[in-house]
């Protein structure tokens, strides 16, 4: 499971405050803890904390790079921020994210190829998030086509079919799972399929339970990456156990410890 740690996001109060006060220790601590907990990459989102998106992003990346070489996912919807920040990120990086409209996606694919980066593509276009499975699958196929035409290896493409909160859109979790399975079958080797997992439980009770149940269900359909909270130990244990049940690893009585030992952050 490719876990992209979600915690360095200006939506969280600790990060928001750290951004405003330029308190590097808070960010370093979050980076270290997420990596030790098994994250493969770290999402970086300035959120509404500061006015200068680009400056805030570059400061966060610089602080993160002082403690880890892990891939950083530059999380912004603004092209001007993305195109300005990505060339200045040393090491492994992910563009988070592009929409599926061909003219937009090809711009992001071009930047990813030029910068040796990976790309997260959302199954959303000018019409918004499709209300059915077919629409998502179509946009997934569109993203794969643009990536292949632009020379981006599919191992470096992450497709996110966009999970909406279950209390707002009750059919959406099932749609996403079906879309994941279908998009996965389009290419061999397939692109990565991922979700911004925590979104499924926005403003719900039992958030952790919903997150980890859905994680296991989506993994069974072929999801192999997620932006999620690696500091939620039960969630991480559910991911490891789901991989065991999907025969991604060989069982032993200490399989949880064994999997944690093999984690990149350890």
């Amino acid at each position, binding site marked *: 499971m490719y876990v992209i740690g979600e915690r360095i996001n200006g939506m969280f109060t600790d990060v928001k405050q750290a951004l405003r006060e330029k308190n590097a220790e808070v960010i370093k601590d979050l980076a270290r803890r997420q990596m030790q907990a098994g994250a493969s990459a770290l999402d970086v989102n300035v959120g509404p904390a500061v006015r200068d998106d680009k400056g805030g992003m570059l400061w966060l990346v610089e602080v993160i790079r002082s403690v880890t070489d892990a891939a950083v996912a530059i999380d912004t919807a603004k092209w001007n921020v993305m195109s300005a920040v990505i060339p200045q990120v040393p090491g492994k990086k992910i563009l988070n994210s592009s929409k599926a409209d061909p003219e937009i996606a090809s711009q992001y694919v071009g930047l990813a190829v030029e910068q040796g980066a990976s790309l997260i593509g959302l199954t959303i276009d000018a019409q918004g998030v499709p209300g059915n499975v077919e629409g998502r699958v179509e946009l997934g196929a569109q993203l794969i086509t643009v990536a292949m035409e632009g020379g981006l290896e599919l191992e470096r493409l992450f497709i996110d079919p966009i999970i909406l909160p279950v209390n707002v859109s009750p059919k959406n979790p099932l749609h996403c799972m079906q879309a994941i399975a279908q998009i996965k079958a389009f290419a061999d080797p397939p692109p990565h399929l991922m979700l911004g997992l925590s979104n499924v439980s926005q403003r719900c009770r039992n958030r952790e339970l919903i997150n980890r149940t859905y994680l296991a269900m989506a993994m069974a359909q072929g999801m192999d990456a997620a932006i999620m909270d690696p500091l939620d130990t039960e969630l991480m244990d559910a991911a490891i156990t789901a991989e065991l049940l999907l025969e991604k690893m060989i*069982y*032993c*009585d200490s399989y949880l410890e064994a999997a944690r030992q093999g984690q990149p952050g350890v």
Partner: protein
Amino acid sequence: MSSLPDVKEKWTGKVNTVVIGATPEEGGTRTSTVTIGGAETLPFLSFEGAVGRRPAIAAEVWDSGGEAWPEVLRQAYGEALSSPGEWAKKAVEFGVDLICLRLMGAHPDSGDRSPQQCAQTVKEVLAAVGVPLIIWGCGVDEKDNQILPAASAAAKGENCLMGTAREKNYRTIVAVCLADKHKLIAESPLDINIAKQVNILCSDAGFPVGDIVIFPTTGALGYGIEYVYSIQERGRLAALRGDKLLGQPVICDVGFEAWRAKEAKAPPFEGVTDETRPYWGVMWEAATALVLLQAGAELVVMRHPDAIQYVRKAVDRFMPADEEKS
């Protein structure tokens, strides 16, 4: 224009390399060392990737009790079977890479030799030959916990391969291997889950997984070899897919198992002439070794010089010409 699809497997993991033995510069007294492992693809498939180091052959030597071995083996080693040092020398003349000293005489039912006697035998064999040593206990937990510390101390600094650590009995041997700087054999009873579990137990006890050699238990031709093969193959596939707790070289106890087979040692039976009879055990041993090398074994412990010779020549044919560069 159409092109053939690429059928080569791409693997993300690899098998660790393990060095056995230490020369004077490295703090030991061995004249040679042996490195096993390093494969980045399935055995001998050099067209797919690095096949790693050449598999090594160890000759089995007992501290006592060799006189009771089958006639064909007694003929090969002669008088030397009653002296571990002479026995080891003779085996080295047969062209093996290491000596596997099995402390069989320490078994409570076969001599019950003391830790001091075992240590003495270790020193004797070390003095007799220059190749690296594998030191193997008698298989009885309580007794192994007494003799292995003594045997280990007697070979301190020689970077031996010591065995075996088992799921229910690993702490003592892990501690002595750490203290005396030896490599470790982790044993499991033909069970891939336990093979992984023993490795993580040893690792949690502070032993580096990179210094472990897996002993998945061996069975001879006609005595469960298909099962042994599939267990080894599953372990190797997991290793190549990136499971670091199964990414260790594998040792197989070929001679011990092959010469237990009734075909190897029983009197002639229907369809077997007296002329071919002596070679049955030899062929049984060679065939068992070759099958398990195909399953990924990096180190085979063997007995008969003709079987050893046969396997060595087969490995010569299987290994790519530029093996030494890997």
